[in-house]
């Protein structure tokens, strides 16, 4: 890597990957294993044990239905970690330090996105492997399975752009992650994540059916289980593109102002 320069694509990615390594190493191994391996496994088997029989009675194969929901849950968790890291980097002066260095500014963003992608991929691998033990299968071939992974990571990065904007505005990582937990939990639970939309009380069903988390879940389930995929995937991608446009604009603004 050439030193002393800020511009250039080579620097953007070279330095970005360097920062990604730093971001990943920030979380201790024990912590990463507990949050990215142990907990997803507990959640897959826990929800199966709890609600498997109830939903089988409604004709839903829960082992096939559930893993995409746990994937989406962990994509949220990756995004909340991103916000936490940005807020603590801002509090302890690391962001200001980056500015004083002769490195590409975009590298800070690339570093965050690469670290998020790695964590997202790890979570997806763990959840899918656990799902396979429980009876989950990719039934629509390799391209659809890769589409599943790509859409999941895309979802993580989109949400991460939004949460990062919040993290960059704040200097209090604990408060940011507490706030985001309060926001994400209803968004996830009041979607088709754990039960199908028609199991909700009638008054809230329209919201459940038309909110973006449900759109992403429908697409993931279509990619995993086969059946018509084009419609759900297009809807999900349209949602993500729209959200990404808004979130990244906010994140860029916040990043420019953050000192």
């Amino acid at each position, binding site marked *: 890597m050439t030193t002393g320069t800020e511009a250039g694509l080579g620097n953007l990615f070279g330095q970005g990957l360097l920062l990604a390594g730093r971001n990943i190493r920030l979380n*201790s191994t*024990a*912590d990463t294993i*507990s949050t990215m391996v*142990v*907990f997803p496994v*507990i959640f897959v*088997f*826990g*929800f199966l*044990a*709890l*609600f*498997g*029989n*109830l*939903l089988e*009675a*409604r004709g839903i194969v829960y082992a096939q239905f559930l893993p995409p929901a746990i994937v989406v849950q962990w994509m949220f968790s990756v995004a909340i970690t991103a916000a936490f890291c940005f807020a603590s980097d801002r509090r302890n002066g690391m962001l200001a330090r980056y500015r004083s260095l002769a490195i590409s500014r975009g590298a800070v963003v690339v570093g965050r996105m690469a670290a998020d992608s790695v964590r997202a991929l790890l979570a997806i691998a763990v959840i899918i492997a656990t799902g396979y033990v429980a009876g989950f299968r990719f039934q629509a071939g390799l391209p659809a399975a890769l589409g599943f992974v790509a859409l999941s990571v895309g979802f993580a990065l989109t949400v991460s752009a939004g949460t990062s904007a919040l993290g960059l505005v704040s200097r209090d990582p*604990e*408060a940011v992650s*507490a706030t985001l*937990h*309060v926001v994400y*939990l*209803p968004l996830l*639970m*009041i979607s088709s994540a*754990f*039960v199908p939309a028609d*199991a*909700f*009380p009638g008054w*809230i069903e329209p919201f459940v059916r038309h909110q973006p988390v449900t759109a992403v879940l429908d697409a993931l389930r279509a990619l995993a289980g086969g059946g018509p995929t084009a419609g759900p995937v297009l809807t999900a991608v349209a949602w993500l593109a729209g959200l990404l446009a808004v979130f990244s604009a906010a994140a860029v603004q916040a990043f420019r102002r953050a000192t």
Partner: protein
Amino acid sequence: MSTITETGLLAGRNLRRFAKSPQLVADAVMFPLILLFLMLLVFGELVGAATHGGRYIDRLAPVIVLFSAAYGAVGTGVGFFTDLRSGIVDRFRSMNISRLSVLAGRIVGDLVRAVLVAAVTTAVAHLAGFRFTGGPLAVLGFFAVVALFAWIFLWLAVVVAMAASSEQAVSGALNTPVTLLLFLSSGFVPVEQFPGWLQPVVRANPLSLAGDALVGLSGGGPVLLPVLFTGAWAVAATVILVPLAVRLYK
């Protein structure tokens, strides 16, 4: 000063520190309440249909009360760990007070907190249809069982706090068993809904037993056996964890 006065003073300190932190209060009170309403919304119809018209809130509110008591113990562990590392415990030790008051103050303060949080949770659950139908004595019994249940997890939390090497390790080591117990309990769905081989685990889970006791004491149902079994768990925890905590503390 007697040990009891010292314990009271130190318990007061812990309670005030809790009450003055909006984040701790929000975490202890808001999170269980959000979970209560979300579970009701998402699973109310399904579980209601499976239990033939049984009201989900009657079962759900007690389990959320117990969950917040167990989950609150994570805060106890982290708080005690911070006290140990920040030097305040060493400062207390250098003072002319009984050494055990510090430990007792932590437990008593957080027991009071657990009961207060339970009172707030049941009050809010009242809005969702939760009712005490057994009279004042049953209400007292309800909160006594909550305290008994919290007792188990508070001692677990202080033992973990003294054995752990980092704050993350404390919350990790406590969050995992609490989450497992919550999933594998009869709180969210009746025990018959679990796979057969898991049912014995679900039945023996202290969260299921204390949950049954709370359901009996609020909405009606068997009380004596679940209370006795919860008591057995508390006795077992006392016999194992209290001497361990005292030894680690010394």
